[in-house]
């Protein structure tokens, strides 16, 4: 794909997430078939494709909400531990292995809450899933549950009101306020989340995910239902998350304006199969992508197929 360029792209030289031969079947339906791709560390990677292409299924596999039928999903912390460590881990029965800050996680083996807590992958949902009856601040504190549980020595220290718990709680509130200021919701911290306008709910869900202190942030259609101004704000927020916090982003999006503008790397799915993979400029001009998105006239099918064959032959 990137043949001829002097250095390999980041998703190959320094990946944070590697999806290998992922297959997900629901009964007879193959939602995702033998999909492999990587997401680069510090990149914004977009997963796009027509409706029903299997994007959300991939997300659910990565975040542990589905157990894939086949395949391996590797999350790498730090520099990773090299291919040997991955091979050794796969052979062992363990879920993950760590040496200092470097760690390897086999996500297909881990339950969803462990993926969020250990592998540090946070996600948002296509239909917003905030805790509507809880305040904005409470939403952001629930996201820091595990750290606070440890600080409260699993509730015992909290009941006894130990100062260490109070310090941890104040730090958690501080982090929440930092993010609320970032998304202009600081003055609504004590309002119920369900009372916020739609765009603010989207932003709040993203910052709630950020409060789990992730290394990879998975966003399922973050721009859905946003107007142009809100989309622009979202782009800015995502860039801020990537540049200031060094968090890699994997996102599903239909809004091509958002995708083309902020993505460092785009993976295109159609019918559960990868049809294109590369930088924005590459994907935009890929005839397969154009065919998948715009479709082709019946009489042109033969011609397009021939063109595709010659293209594949040339590759």
């Amino acid at each position, binding site marked *: 794909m990137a043949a001829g360029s002097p250095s390999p792209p980041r998703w190959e030289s320094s990946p944070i997430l590697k999806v290998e031969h992922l297959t997900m079947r629901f009964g007879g339906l193959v939602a995702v078939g033998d999909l492999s791709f990587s997401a680069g560390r510090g990149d914004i990677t977009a997963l796009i494709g027509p409706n029903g292409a299997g994007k959300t299924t991939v997300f659910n596999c990565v975040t542990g909400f589905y157990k894939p039928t086949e395949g391996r999903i590797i999350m790498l912390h730090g520099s990773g531990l090299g291919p040997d460590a991955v091979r050794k881990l796969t052979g062992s029965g363990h879920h993950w292995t760590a040496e200092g800050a470097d760690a390897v996680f086999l996500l297909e083996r881990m339950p969803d809450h462990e993926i969020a807590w250990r592998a540090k992958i946070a996600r948002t*949902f296509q239909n917003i899933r905030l805790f*509507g*009856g*809880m305040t904005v*601040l409470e939403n952001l504190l*629930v996201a820091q549950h595990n750290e606070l*549980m440890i600080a409260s020595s699993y*509730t015992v220290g909290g009941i006894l009101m130990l100062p260490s718990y109070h310090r941890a709680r104040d730090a958690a509130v501080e982090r929440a306020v930092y993010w609320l200021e970032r998304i202009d919701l600081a003055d609504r*911290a*004590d309002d119920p989340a369900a009372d916020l306008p739609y765009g603010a709910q989207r932003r709040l869900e993203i910052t709630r995910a950020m409060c789990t202190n992730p290394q990879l942030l998975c966003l399922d259609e973050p721009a859905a239902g946003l107007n142009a101004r809100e989309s622009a704000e979202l782009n800015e927020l995502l860039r801020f998350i990537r540049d200031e916090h060094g968090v890699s982003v994997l996102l599903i999006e239909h809004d091509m304006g958002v995708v083309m503008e902020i993505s460092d790397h785009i993976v295109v799915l159609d019918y559960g199969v990868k049809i294109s993979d590369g930088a924005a400029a590459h994907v935009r001009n890929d005839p397969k992508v154009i065919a998948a998105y715009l479709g082709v006239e019946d009489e042109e099918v033969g011609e397009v197929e021939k063109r595709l064959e010659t293209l594949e032959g040339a590759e």
Partner: protein
Amino acid sequence: MADEAVGSVASTKALGEQRDVEAWRAAAAGEPPVHAVPKQGGGILMESLKDAALVALITTALGFFFLGLRTELGVGALEMTARWRFLIIAVAIVFAGRLLLNLLIFRSPHPISLGIGRLAPSIQTLDTLGRIAGPVLLLFALALPFLVLEFTPARGRQFIDLAILILTYIMLGWGLNIVVGLAGLLDLGYVAFYAVGAYSFALLAQYTGFGFWVCLPLAGMLAAFWGIILGFPVLRLRGDYLAIVTLAFGEMVRIILINWQEFTGGPNGISGIPKPSLFGLEFTRDEGGVAAFFGLEYASVHRFIWLYYIILALALLTNFVTHRLRRLPIGRAWEALREDEIACRSLGINTRNTKLTAFAIGAMFGGFAGSFFATRQGFISPESFTFIESAIILAIVVLGGLGSQIGVVCAAIVMIGGIEVLRNLDFLKDIFGPTFEPTHYRMLIFGLAMVVIMVWKPRGLISSRVPSIALREKKRIGADLVAQGEGR
């Protein structure tokens, strides 16, 4: 109690008030807000009469065999007697009731039910009311035995006994509130933990000779243990399925208690359960007793006062722990779980463990209450732990308002106290004749109260939620925004 009492600054803005939002939603639902043209009075009356007549006709048809005819075992054969007067009275009641409903609500241009809806106090008034009511009720509860003895010495024992009963249900309600109100897990078998607590104490006392104060924590721990045992297999179930399995668990515990005759005494129960002592002093007439120690004249009511303060302390402990836990990460996780379980998992919360802690802590308080029940009665049998107990406790929690501590208090006083008031309505016998027994209508009144509350305040008496933490000011959250758990 303290739940409502400890708030910071009063809310200036009433957030998410149910009625406003509902009106807004109705307006936004796509139907233009057309005001029905009020029909002429004669038309409404005629229609109402017609409708009432139709309903009366249906009642006649339905009641012809069920009410009008009665078969009794006579000499050698069944004898059939006709009770037309009875049937006519029933039809007349239905006719009149339907007519009134038609005229006042169904067909009226100004239904009075709307007025009733407006009677519901706003979130703000509830806020201030709750903050005052908490400490006042607490002081009242502390002083109650002395007030009772001062003003009605003759019936003092009876009233203190009633207060003990009500407090037991308040404690059970608060315990169940952790499971149903906070964590949103519908538990129809809470009485099982009550039974485990009661039997743990009774059996420990019988087989080992331990006293109440040793057995109380043990009974609580055993109940919590059974909560975890039950929780492990069933907590992957949701909503209705969880309710059914917990219901079955409650029945299983009762049936095991009945059938394991050698160990539990079966249907005969266990008697001679020890009474609680006051730091080793027994409430007896002899020299080592409490009365002699304090130089008081012996009175049997002392023991009741002591029991009253024990259950008050236990109930306050339940409330205190719940209150404290709500502000800790575990309590916030319970509420988040009630709101959205999938989101919880995406944030790294181990939902199984979180649910188990809610189940275990709720069960533990049920166990405490059970062991208190055993020591108060001195005798327990499986009869005391039927499904209706679970239903009453759940009704107290639901009527009071899920998650509201003071609502549970109100509901328990109304429901348990109300049944007791029924027993004492002797004047009704003057009206309906000497055979009239008001307590027979207990369930009917119970059901009516339920319907009225559900129409008037569908989310319970006190349904708004106080946030567990606030940056600047705590604003109550309207019930319509708060999820009730289990994927709804």
